[in-house]
């Protein structure tokens, strides 16, 4: 394999912690899975680093590992480097973690879709094993023994027979002269010898977070920066009509008022346009923004009204639509049945409301009147998307956009859409100095890429045992595809697959359709995406059928899931998130296992014996290739006040790298899903969002979140699946099924704030 060492100096700043003149061994993994290589920096030379590097070892033994995914609370900035360190047999206390800038040669950095461990677990192992193997070979040459007799152990290579050992730092020079081993010749550690994978460690940023020193996008600073707050058109696609800024410019500290153009064509990640106020402080800019006298032309979305649209969606979901899955003949079976059940379910728009609003600082460099580069520091889930969007806006090559990734004050999908980074870049271009853009909470709630608004119609014919003989699902919701393709009214396959087309139930006749729906705002992905409305509908309907049949919901659900088997993904037309059916089969046995296990944990047997006002609800689903079962317990007083004393969750996501961080996300998902179920609703009138801050877009706090979350991770040798989004979808239906058990009230639309839960 060729040595990829690259003299290109344009990638400055990468691996900046490595001192000039040190001798380092570096292994790289690039986009091609097997392309692992090692590069060497000669002693005394100026280090020039190829950004494809994931691990380097300096002569003093310090190991530097690149974190190329964004940290927004999952622990990934610690988890993936620990995978490298494990295969390398590195001493974790001698490991330094470097956050990568955006660069497509690292492979995907889009920290989204619960993909980080799934996509990079094996690549990180190969990177670590490559470096360890070279160190072992170097020691073998020095000792004149067989490489197979030499083993990396906790930062030293050891020769057991002679008792000799050498530290990693002492082997770097010899190792760097060796050829790079092919990845298929590497000796990988067996799982029984893993020292960090599956073991807990504090996240690398813990102390910085606890002392207030952690740097988020809102904290990013550049010398001589201005602070910007922006007035955006209240309606998506609107344009500035008139502007008076005299009062704004009179505010102490305000420097400039600058117009930003609206987007052309589909919104994608372009700025919404508007008027930016740039000042010496965030507060001055904010005050100035509020004193702007602006009027807007609302454009084509000025009549968007979600009350009207809800009725449109309900109609669309009743009509035949595009067929996504058709096993057997559901239509004829239902038409010929005397026992047909049907129900409709709906979920409104939701906002991400990440705790830190979107924020970025940009510095555009202009030489001889020509834009040459842009450096940004941003809270972004996707630095490569920042490169693309900023490069397009400034008409410079993507490689000239350097994106430093800060910590993210959560993201949930919002921060993979870099419109706010482009805003900062355009303002810096205009002012020829760094500009930091802060979104206020009102900006964030009113100008989000909203979770879709949806309606699902379900119909089933049932046999004498109460189990369905045919199952029809019709959904209508504006699609994320409208973000990229202006005017698109068709659902995308990946959206329908999330919770509808992937129906796991053992029903002879299944038909899945979607209707057309126009998008009148920016539609984006939010933690667990279309699974939210789809699994709410499907798992609620299963519970309805159980009650109709007079059967216990757990027993019925297991019967509905049928025999342990692998779902025929070809027959169902599933893409399986691009994963192969061999590696990631749709295993009904595993889905049944988490369903049964969570019921055991919750002592489900007592479900039928609870007094009125108390209830247990169950739901389970496969999402992001992982399996989750939820049982929710509710207490509802006669006036309708709801409490959630306890939630049980069983998660099977294959091999787990960081158990405590996964448990933390499972616990947190119960709270986030509680927010969705209890409060989540963004509504529009005349194209404008009616909510503006946490007083009217409520987030569950400690007092209305589940009081106790008991989570269990199923031990598994299966390849790692997603975990961040996986424990979200089954919570809301389990909660609503519990509400039915407690009160007899069936909830078919969210949020619960719209419903009266009182009983007598």
């Amino acid at each position, binding site marked *: 394999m060729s040595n990829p060492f690259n003299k290109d100096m344009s990638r400055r700043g990468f691996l900046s912690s490595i001192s000039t003149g040190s001798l380092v061994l570096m292994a790289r993994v690039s986009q091609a899975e097997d392309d692992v290589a090692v590069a060497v920096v000669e002693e005394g030379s100026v280090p020039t680093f190829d950004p494809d590097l994931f691990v380097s070892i300096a002569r003093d033994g310090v190991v530097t590992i690149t974190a190329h995914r964004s940290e927004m609370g999952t622990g990934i900035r610690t988890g993936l480097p620990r995978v490298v360190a494990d295969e390398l047999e590195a001493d974790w206390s001698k490991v330094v973690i470097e956050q990568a800038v955006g660069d497509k040669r690292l492979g995907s950095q889009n920290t989204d879709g619960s993909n980080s461990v799934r996509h990079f677990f094996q690549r990180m192992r190969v990177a670590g094993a490559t470096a360890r193997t070279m160190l072992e070979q170097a020691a073998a040459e020095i000792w004149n023994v067989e490489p197979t007799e030499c083993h990396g152990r906790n930062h030293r290579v050891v020769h057991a027979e002679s008792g000799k050992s050498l530290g990693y730092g002492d082997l770097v020079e010899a190792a760097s002269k060796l050829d790079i081993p092919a990845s298929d010749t590497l000796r990988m550690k067996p799982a029984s010898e893993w020292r960090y994978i599956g073991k807990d460690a504090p996240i690398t940023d813990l102390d910085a977070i606890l002392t207030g020193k952690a740097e988020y996008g809102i904290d990013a600073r550049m010398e001589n920066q201005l602070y910007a707050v922006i007035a955006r058109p209240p309606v998506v696609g609107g344009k500035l009509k008139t502007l008076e800024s005299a009062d704004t410019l009179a505010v102490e500290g305000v420097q400039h008022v600058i117009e930003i153009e609206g987007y052309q064509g589909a919104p994608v990640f372009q700025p919404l346009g508007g008027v930016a106020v740039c000042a010496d*402080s965030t507060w001055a800019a904010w005050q100035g923004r509020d004193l702007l006298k602006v009027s807007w032309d609302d454009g084509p979305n000025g009549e968007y009204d979600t009350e009207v649209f809800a009725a449109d969606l309900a109609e669309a979901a009743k009509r035949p639509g595009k067929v996504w899955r058709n096993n057997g003949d559901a239509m004829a079976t239902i038409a010929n049945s005397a026992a047909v059940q049907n129900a409709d379910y709906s979920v409104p728009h939701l906002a991400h409301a990440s*705790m*830190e609003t979107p924020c970025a600082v940009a510095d555009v460099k202009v030489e001889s009147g020509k834009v040459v580069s842009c450096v940004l520091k941003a809270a972004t889930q996707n630095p490569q998307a920042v490169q693309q969007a900023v490069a397009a806006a400034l008409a410079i090559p993507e490689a000239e956009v350097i994106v430093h990734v800060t910590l993210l*004050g959560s993201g949930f999908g919002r921060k993979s859409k870099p419109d706010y980074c482009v805003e900062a870049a355009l303002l810096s271009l205009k002012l020829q100095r760094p500009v930091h853009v802060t979104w206020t909470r009102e900006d964030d709630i009113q100008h989000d890429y909203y979770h879709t608004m949806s309606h699902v119609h379900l119909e089933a014919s049932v046999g004498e045992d109460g189990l369905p003989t045919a199952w029809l699902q019709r959904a209508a919701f504006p699609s994320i595809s409208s973000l990229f393709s202006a005017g698109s009214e068709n659902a995308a396959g990946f959206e329908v697959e999330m919770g509808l087309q992937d129906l796991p139930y053992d029903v002879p006749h299944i038909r899945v359709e979607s209707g057309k729906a126009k998008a009148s705002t920016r539609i984006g992905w939010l933690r667990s995406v279309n699974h939210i409305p789809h699994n709410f509908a499907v798992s609620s309907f299963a519970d309805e059928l159980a009650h109709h049949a007079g059967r216990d919901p757990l027993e019925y659900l297991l019967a509905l899931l049928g025999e342990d088997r692998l779902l025929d993904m070809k027959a169902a037309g599933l893409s399986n998130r691009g994963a192969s059916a061999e590696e990631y089969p749709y295993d009904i046995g595993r889905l049944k296992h988490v369903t049964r296990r969570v019921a055991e944990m919750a002592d489900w047997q007592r479900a039928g014996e609870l007094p009125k006002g108390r209830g247990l609800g169950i739901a389970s689903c496969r999402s992001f290739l992982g399996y989750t079962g939820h049982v929710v317990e509710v207490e509802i007083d006669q006036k309708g006040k709801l409490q959630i004393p306890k939630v049980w969750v069983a998660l099977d996501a294959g091999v787990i790298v960081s158990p405590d961080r996964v448990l933390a996300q499972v616990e947190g998902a119960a709270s986030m899903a509680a927010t969705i179920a209890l409060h989540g609703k963004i509504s529009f009138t005349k194209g404008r969002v009616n909510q503006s801050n946490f007083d009217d877009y409520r987030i569950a*706090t400690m007092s209305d979140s589940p009081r106790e979350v008991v989570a269990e991770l199923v031990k598994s040798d299966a390849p790692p699946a997603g975990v961040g989004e996986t424990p979200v979808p089954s919570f809301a239906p389990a909660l609503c099924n519990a509400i039915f058990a407690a009160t007899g009230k069936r909830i078919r639309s969210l949020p619960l704030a719209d419903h009266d839960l009182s009983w007598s």
Partner: protein
Amino acid sequence: MTIINVNGEKRELGDIPDDTPLLWVLRDQLGLTGTKYGCGVSECGVCTVHLDGEAVQSCVTTVGEVGDSLVTTIEGLSEDGTHPVQNAWREHGVPQCGYCQVGQMMMAAALLKANASPTDEEIENEMWNICRCGTYPRIRAAIKTAAKEMQK
């Protein structure tokens, strides 16, 4: 000339309007970015600091209101990050994204100063801060651990 006392130091702010929120003075003028912005209207608690030992939301507390009171931010909660609340947060692995945790810890520290052994209900009533990652069960547990530590 406005002067405020932050973490035991007198800080000169120049001639700034009395109605300037403490939050932006701390963050943009004094460079104390440990205190975060979340909502600007005292709905989320992310910006919580101490004023004479009591929890206040710095986004709605003006420098005029601060006057001669002593302001404590996360940078001044302890010298080396070992306040019992910080230790308990570390022990329970509370933070996920971490953004709201400074405000949560400042709130918890003030709560424990006023009430050495709060009940579950008291913790729930006092800790109204929003955490979007949903770390509430661990916050509750960490407050109890910190309470025990402080009683030793």
